[in-house]
């Protein structure tokens, strides 16, 4: 019997289930058909357990466990949704909503409904203010919509592209995703692979065409600013 074949048993929301050794609590929940919300977790990026929206109660422990990274323990008793779990999830959502423009994050909005989160729970809170950065023909960055899931930074680095155009700037609540010294994307090592846009869970990173359409740009403006519809010719390759 190889190590991969070893299984263990745990109780998840009252049901006994058997999982492979090394399975995460999120894996176990999927297996049991139980839904656990996630924000930062993405199957294509290394899990960092940042958003903590997936926390669950394991054996009534002192602290809750992030289901995306915590491994199943044999004979443990897991509650994926009790009062403690709900308080944490609801409070995280309410606090997040007070800092970030979630207008274009329908999944998070659905979570807010599900957890009865009050979208005015924290009056007079500081929204993280950013102006839209439009510095390249491929995508725009609106960090007012950024939840700091780190996915873009990760795919730009060791999770996919090894380009290292992005980093995190400042710390704590003042953190934002940035290039070195805030240089424009065209000055940065960015190769415009588009993977960051692909993994962004909100409207923070958006293809330029989509953004232009939202801005009500004309076809000519779209052509001018996004290179769409332009004939490929040597002079086009010279840039604008």
């Amino acid at each position, binding site marked *: 019997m190889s190590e991969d074949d070893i299984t263990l048993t745990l109780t998840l929301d009252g049901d006994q289930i058997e999982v492979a050794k090394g399975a995460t609590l999120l894996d176990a929940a999927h297996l049991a058909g139980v839904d656990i919300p996630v924000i930062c977790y993405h199957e294509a990026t290394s899990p960092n357990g940042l958003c903590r929206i997936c926390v669950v109660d394991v054996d009534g422990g002192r602290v809750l466990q992030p289901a995306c990274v915590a491994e199943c323990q044999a004979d443990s008793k897991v509650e994926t949704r009790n009062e403690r779990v709900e308080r944490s999830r609801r409070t995280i959502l309410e606090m997040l909503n007070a800092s970030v423009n979630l207008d274009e994050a329908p999944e998070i909005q659905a979570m807010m409904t599900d957890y009865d989160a009050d979208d005015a729970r924290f009056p007079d809170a500081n929204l993280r203010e950013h102006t839209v950065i439009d510095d390249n023909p491929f995508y725009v960055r609106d960090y007012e919509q950024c939840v700091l899931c780190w996915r873009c930074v990760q795919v730009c680095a060791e999770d996919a592209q090894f380009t290292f155009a992005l*980093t995190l700037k*400042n710390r704590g*609540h003042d953190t934002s995703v940035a290039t070195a010294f805030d240089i424009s994307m065209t000055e940065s090592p960015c190769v415009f692979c588009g993977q960051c846009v692909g993994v962004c869970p909100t409207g923070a990173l958006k293809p330029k065409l989509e953004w232009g359409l939202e801005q009500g740009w004309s076809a000519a403006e779209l052509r001018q600013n996004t290179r769409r519809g332009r004939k490929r010719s040597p002079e086009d390759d010279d840039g604008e």
Partner: protein
Amino acid sequence: MTFHSRIDTLLSIYEGRGREALLPILWEVQGAYGHISPEHVRQISHLLRVPEADIFGVIGFYTLFHGEPTGRRIIRVCTDPICALAGADDVLHRLCEALGVHEGETTADGDYTVEHSPCLGLCDYAPAALVSARGEADVALPHVSADSLLSDWDGQYFTPAGNDRSVLLKPMLRAAPETLAQYGNYAALRRAVTEMSPDDVITQVEASGLIGRGGAAFPTGLKWKFTRGAAGEIKYVVCNADESEPGTFKDRVLMEHRPHLLLEGIALAAYAIGTDKAYIFIRGEYPKATAILADAIREAETACALGERVFDSDFSLDIELRRGAGAYICGEETALFEAIEGKRGFPRMKPPYPTTFGLFGKPTAVNNVETLCAVPGIIAKGADYFKAIGSNGSAGPKLVSVSGHVRRPGVYEIEPGITLRHFLEAICGGLIGDLQTVLMGGAAGTFIKPEDIDVKLTFEDLREAGSTFGSGAIMVFNHSVDLRDVLKRLGRFFQHESCGKCFPCQLGTQRQVEILERLDAPRAGDSERLLDIGLTMTEASICGLGHTAGIAVMSAIEQFPELFEKEL
């Protein structure tokens, strides 16, 4: 010298090194140029093979590094609760006025940058400041005023500590640190490497009942046993000297007074777990202790007590001193590893624990300064000697830092089991004014009311009372103190020091301070908001900072509910 030849020479020292050399290099450049420019970053990136964006991210994480030009002198005035009681806000205000700048700005002539700072660990000399002058060693200044900060800098201070009966501390008569000759040539280490096996050392430490003094109270012997038993050839000892909890300065005093006691403790730990490499990670705000330790390491190496083949045995030890750069979070052990590795100081997820996956992914024993300082005595005099001091659950002497409204603030060595009342009234000279409350354990601690100060100072009694030794900080407030102001400052501290990695703490410390800032005119429901924030940070954050960032506020809600209600 031209810009390029100077920086080239500076960087050439680090030729062949990797990312782990990033913080030391950033310190060199920061010290020489006052900031780290895009051109510097390009050169460092090339030298260490670290992406420019990553280096930029690291600079922005540590508050003592600057990516923008600064004044030739950067003055940072501590505005945390104890310095605030001593008039720090006024000092900062007058300083800004005298220089014609706002806080955070640089004078037009480029001479000064003025900032506020989190606790500098000079609470017995409040108000305190840290000054960085271009090209000179940083200096921490006691009892500052706006005038003194702009004229002569007298960095001389000396925290008296210890008496004839104390074990860790010694009655020091002068500000000079204990020399190797005064300390004695590492007799416990000599005995260990010549007569004892590493397992014998661990057995002694285990039998002594020593538990960690950094705040988490983990049994030291067990930690060493796990590290020694972990698979792998390469292991490390890391001394956590990133003492940054507001109101805490016991480790500073130990390092400034008795550097060799700490170095011998580190050497014993290294021998016990089986390594020839140890790091001391000391907070950037402790320039004096850093210089003293650097000298002491050289002195001990010359005497063959450290370095190659210690006392002609097969045991060798290199101790490397690493300077932090302004980030409370790096006192969290895994964030500290990240800092040594040249990264932003983000705490890692646990498990895996440091004893199997620590610094550079290798098994690591990470211990607090005071913990390591207890070890030479245990090896020299035996576990029973240590165990005889204190209570069953709190073996050995314990250091506490007391500040605020007592006659003699400072660092004291106590025998666990005495009451807080006895400590306050008899040991540190008595209270000034009528006691309002004691904040026990630091910014992440709990408030104790006057009627509860008969609690015994032991790990177990404090735990039972819902409190904690924490970092060993005891902040004393009489009735002249506006506790709302104290809470605001604690809130600002955590907001400033949250690393921003996990949502509960990144958002919770921000929401918490927003509510605390309006305590003078609270909104209906603010205590419920604070409790939800506090409990969510406690239960859902990644690390100990988040777990404790709401503790003092929740304790205040319980002890002083009236503070959170609208005044009629």
